[in-house]
Structures are given as structure tokens and as C-alpha cells.
């Protein structure tokens, strides 16, 4: 890729434009970006491995700390998988409370994002305003759960704290205040010339590219991909709630802003429905410490996109394997596409537009050569799996034809 008129600059691992250590190596021609190499791994904490040494209860608190913003997402996703393994019927009231916290989290995450995006484009007034309004939600979360972040509301088999009528009143009052503020921000985003001009046409990701690169969450929805786990595979109480999946056809950072803002209004409506329809009953059921052997995959729509947890149990108190696919890992490939042939100055806002959480994303692959490990290509792996299933009496040829 090296030629004489190409200039390579490293951005990160430590860089003022990035909020977390991550390395981008950018090939430039003048101000134009020719290509980007992204290196993950500067924030690796070995959480998945650490989960194998701890009990399910301890893992829940550990996994909650994968991300400071979508902490409830990770803990709920994990707890759902464990509850499926243990075949527990979680009480309805607990599911409603979980969903309620999840929507509060979405609101505070989107507010935070709006502020950060404002900061990245030099609009710090927006940062101050959104973060001030975010405090309304943070206070409610602290009252309901006992902490501003890492709520610790989940437990295996339900939730740990109930909500009272007093809480309900507080929530509904705060929603009134927030609705006014959100409407104001929507008005700002759709009318303020500086925002529209700065964000339009920046970080383009077409519908086809979003599908091809497996973008998730608001990033995908801003490219017109109506994909939302809450709708596609309802978990917790989402099956009983009426809401819309917000999409936008702008396909750029402006579209992502609009999607997030409109999602805030949807979240408000979801919260009102939850508070008004919350059923009475217990908030948790007892689950034995030893979880039956098996494996489970759980999906969850975090504020940033689809979060996937895989848990394999061997029948003891500790899981055999926990695998986390955080939304940023799915979106990071799209960043490469968004930055290609764009201006270098757009880089901070394009990276910020997927609402990256690099510490959620960091992975490590270690290969031990003594056992004859080797790298094989994706197609070879696919062929190998098809052959393997053929040997075991399952033939996918017909199904493949249908899918093609």
C-alpha cells in the first residue's frame, strides 16, 4: 500500500481526539483519507477469561463493568442467558423493571452521545446542555437502583429492588421535563444550520454497505436498516409494549443524530407505558447456585446496538465459557468504510458517530503452535463445517440453494 505520495499518520493509542486508547493508522493523500487500519487491543482486560474463574453471581457484577454506559445491557444480556440455562421463569414485574432501567439507560446514553458529538464538532454549548439534562435521568437511576452507573439491579432470577408508587410519580414528572428538552434538541438538530452543514454527507454508509459490514444499532438504522432486537426478537417486557423502530435515510452522521434523537422520544413513550402497566407480584425467584450444563445465546438491544452474550455451563457454580460481542465490535468495520475518501478533519466525529466503546470491544487471540494450530480462511472454515455436518448426517445443500 506504500507509495511515494501517500502519507501515513498514526492516530492513537493516545490521542486528544479519542476518548479511549485505540490505534488508527491513516493513509493520507493531502487531506484525503485513502485507507484506515484499525488496531484493537489497548484496553484488553481479560474479562471473558476472568468469568470462568468466578461464580455466576460474581460474573454478573464483573460483566456489568464491561462498559460504564451500557452496564445494564451487559448484565441483563448475561443474566438472560443464565436464566435460559437454568430454565427459570422470571416474574413479570421483574421483567418490567429491567426494561424500565434499560430504557433509562438508552436515554442517558443517547444524551451523552449527543453531547460528545457536539463537542467533537466544536459545539460545546450542546455538550453542556445535554449533560445537564442527562442529570435528571442519572438522579432517577440512582434513586431506583442505588447507583448512578453499574446499577446492579439485576440478579439471576429477577431484580433486586422494587419500585414504589413514589418512584412512579417521580419518573412520570421527570419524563415531562425531559420531553420538553428532547423536543427542543430535535428542533435544534433539524433547524440549526451549523449542525446540519457540519454533519450532512459526513461518514456515509449506504444501505448495502451497512448490511454487508453488519452494522448494528443506530448506525445501521440511520442507513435505513430497520434492525432492532427489541422488535425482531422481543426479550424482557418489549413483547407487550408498543413502539416504533426509528430509521432514517440520510446514511450519514446527521442521520445517526436524528435516529438517536427520535429514539429518545420512543424511549419516553416506552417508559410511560411500562410505569402505567407494571403488574403486581414478586420481583425475583430463587435460582440454585449450580446452573445445569448446556449453552445459551442471548441478544439484547443496547443503546449502541445489538449486544450478544454466549454462556456455556458445565453444571457447576462457574461457567465454562462466556463470550461477549459488544455492539462496537460489530460497528468498527463500518468506520473503515465511512472514513474512506473523506477528509481527515471528519475523522473524530465519524468515529464518535458510532458511539464507540473500545473497552467493550477489545479482544485478544492467542495461538499456541504446539498443538498444530493454523490460520484458515473464512471460506475454508465454512467448507469444513459443511463437510463436518455432512459426515454427521446433516446436509445443508438444499437449504443453501433456498437462501441463495
Amino acid at each position, binding site marked *: 500500500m506504500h507509495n511515494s505520495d501517500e502519507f501515513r499518520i498514526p492516530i492513537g493509542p493516545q490521542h486528544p481526539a479519542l476518548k479511549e486508547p485505540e490505534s488508527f493508522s491513516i493513509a493520507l493523500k493531502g487531506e484525503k483519507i485513502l485507507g484506515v487500519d484499525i488496531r484493537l487491543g489497548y484496553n484488553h482486560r481479560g474479562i471473558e477469561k476472568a468469568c470462568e474463574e468466578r461464580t455466576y453471581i460474581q460474573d454478573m457484577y464483573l460483566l456489568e*463493568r464491561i462498559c460504564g454506559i451500557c452496564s445494564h445491557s451487559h448484565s441483563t444480556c448475561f443474566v438472560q442467558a443464565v436464566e435460559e440455562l437454568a430454565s427459570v421463569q422470571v416474574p413479570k414485574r421483574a421483567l418490567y423493571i429491567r426494561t424500565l432501567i434499560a430504557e433509562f439507560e438508552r436515554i442517558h446514553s443517547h444524551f451523552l452521545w449527543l453531547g460528545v458529538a457536539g463537542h467533537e464538532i466544536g459545539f460545546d*454549548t*450542546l455538550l453542556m446542555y445535554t449533560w445537564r439534562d442527562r442529570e435528571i435521568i442519572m*438522579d432517577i437511576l*440512582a434513586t431506583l437502583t*442505588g*447507583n448512578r452507573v453499574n446499577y446492579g439491579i439485576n440478579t439471576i432470577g429477577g431484580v433486586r429492588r422494587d419500585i414504589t408508587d413514589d418512584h412512579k410519580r417521580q419518573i412520570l414528572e421527570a419524563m415531562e421535563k425531559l420531553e420538553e428538552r428532547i423536543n427542543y434538541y430535535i428542533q*435544534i438538530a433539524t*433547524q440549526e*444550520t451549523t449542525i446540519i452543514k457540519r454533519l450532512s454527507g459526513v461518514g456515509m454508509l449506504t444501505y448495502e454497505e451497512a448490511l454487508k459490514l453488519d452494522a448494528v444499532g443506530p448506525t445501521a438504522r440511520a442507513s435505513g436498516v430497520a434492525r432492532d432486537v427489541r422488535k425482531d426478537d422481543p426479550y424482557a417486557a418489549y413483547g407487550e409494549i408498543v413502539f416504533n423502530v426509528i430509521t432514517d435515510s440520510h446514511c450519514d452522521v446527521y442521520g445517526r443524530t436524528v435516529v438517536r434523537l427520535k429514539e429518545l422520544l420512543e424511549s419516553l413513550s416506552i417508559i410511560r407505558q411500562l410505569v402505567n402497566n407494571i403488574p403486581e407480584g414478586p420481583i425475583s425467584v430463587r435460582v440454585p447456585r449450580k446452573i445445569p450444563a448446556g449453552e445459551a445465546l442471548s441478544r439484547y438491544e443496547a443503546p449502541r446496538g445489538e449486544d450478544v452474550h454466549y454462556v456455556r455451563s458445565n453444571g457447576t457454580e462457574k461457567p465454562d465459557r462466556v463470550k461477549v460481542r459488544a455492539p462496537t465490535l460489530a460497528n468498527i468495520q463500518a468506520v473503515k468504510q465511512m472514513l474512506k475518501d473523506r477528509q481527515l478533519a471528519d475523522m473524530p466525529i465519524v468515529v464518535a458517530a458510532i458511539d464507540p466503546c473500545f473497552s467493550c470491544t477489545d479482544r485478544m487471540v492467542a495461538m499456541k503452535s504446539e498443538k498444530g494450530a493454523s490460520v484458515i480462511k473464512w471460506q475454508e472454515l465454512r467448507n469444513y463445517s459443511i463437510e463436518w455436518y455432512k459426515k454427521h448426517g446433516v446436509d445443508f445443500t438444499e437449504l443453501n440453494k433456498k437462501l441463495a
Partner: protein
Amino acid sequence: MKPGRMLYQVLSSLFKKTATLDYPHDKSQKIKGFRGRLKAYPQRCIGCKMCMRDCPSQAIIIKEVGSKQFEAQIDLSKCIYCGQCADVCPKMALEITDEFELAQFDPEKLKIVFHVELKKNT
């Protein structure tokens, strides 16, 4: 479309009260039910070690120092204030308080140590 849509709000907030609190002088915003410092009731403890087993950060160590005698140590510098120990305790010997100002110069002051002696007939 005209620029400066936010100008009116920006100017009007010059004359409004600040959104932030004058902490530590103003401590009015104390949140009820906040998960802060742990409080232990040694006389209720039975040394079952349930809290020690469940603590995600290994902040609780309970040692058997003699026949039916235990020494419990809670290290608040390791504690993540999740409150799982208080949840799991069968005798309610641990309680979460809303005290959150825990900074100390001396790490020893962050340790809660107590001794438990069970009656012989229990």
C-alpha cells in the same frame, strides 16, 4: 434556516441559577437508597461465609481463629459497593448505608474488622 438557533437559550441561562451544586458546602442532594459504605453488625454474624463466597471483588475475608470464633475483615478499598453481601446474608449482619465520602489517607482506616464468637450451644 438561520444560524444561532440556540442563542436565545444561551443568553437567558446567563441569568439563571447554576445547574451544579456547591459541593462540599451544599450537601442537599443526598440520594435515598444510595449504595455506600457497608455497616456490619458483629453480634448477628454466624460466620457462614456466604458473603465471602459471593463477593465479586474478594473484599471480604472471614477466618476461623478458634473453635466457633471468627475474624472478619471487610476491605472497603476493594469493595465495589454492589451490596450483594448484604443481599445474601441470612442474618442481616451487613447493611448498606448511604455514606459515600470514604476517602482516607490511611488505608488501614478503610478496613472494617470485627470478631465473632458463637455461643457454644448454638
